[in-house]
């Protein structure tokens, strides 16, 4: 049973609009959450993170929101750019750096 789920395998957004990627988790021991971005033929790279003591973290065009009661997090990209087209993985950790990944969402930003 997947402890971290990304229910949308793909998302298509127009350039300049907002992209919202969602992630749900089941393990209440998770207290640290991350988003990774992966281009084809490359390894994933860290994008943004949030700890359970916060409900929002922002870094430029990227904002992650955490709703602990709903066990839900989301990544907002505003404005979306064609270079943001990639697969996005959410990941969660109960401690240290052992990560459990979601299945990924492929984002396509159309010019």
């Amino acid at each position, binding site marked *: 049973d*997947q402890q*971290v789920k*990304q229910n949308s*395998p793909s998302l298509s957004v127009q350039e300049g609009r907002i992209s919202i990627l969602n992630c749900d988790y089941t393990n209440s021991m998770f207290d*640290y959450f*991350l988003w990774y971005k992966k281009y084809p*033929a*490359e*390894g*994933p*790279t*860290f994008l943004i*993170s949030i700890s359970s003591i916060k409900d929002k973290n922002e870094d430029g065009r990227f904002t992650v929101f955490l709703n602990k009661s709903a066990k839900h997090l989301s990544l907002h990209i505003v404005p979306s750019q064609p270079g943001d087209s990639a697969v996005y*993985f959410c*990941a969660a*950790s109960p401690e*240290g*750096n*052992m*990560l*459990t*990944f*979601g*299945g*990924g969402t492929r984002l396509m930003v159309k010019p």
Partner: protein
Amino acid sequence: DVKVTQSSRYLVKRTGEKVFLECVQDMDHENMFWYRQDPGLGLRLIYFSYDVKMKEKGDIPEGYSVSREKKERFSLILESASTNQTSMYLCASSFPGEGGETQYFGPGTRLLVL
């Protein structure tokens, strides 16, 4: 800049063959990880190592083994490759005790088992 390299980008092997996937990192990281990535399943941890000659099973260790003889090198071994091991294999490294953002990934090896 951290560099994690993997010995092959693409591999084609036959069922029953022994397969070695090599990973090398140049940042003196204690922790090293092997994941496989499959569509819809994300990245699943196969094995990890927190020191030379130390190894721990991840979520899906069956059919795999690992070797960590030197700090910078972590090898994944498929003793007898099977078609259900066709996948993208990703290696990562990090310092211990830090957040998950410090996992640095290699480019991946796409393995096809015929």
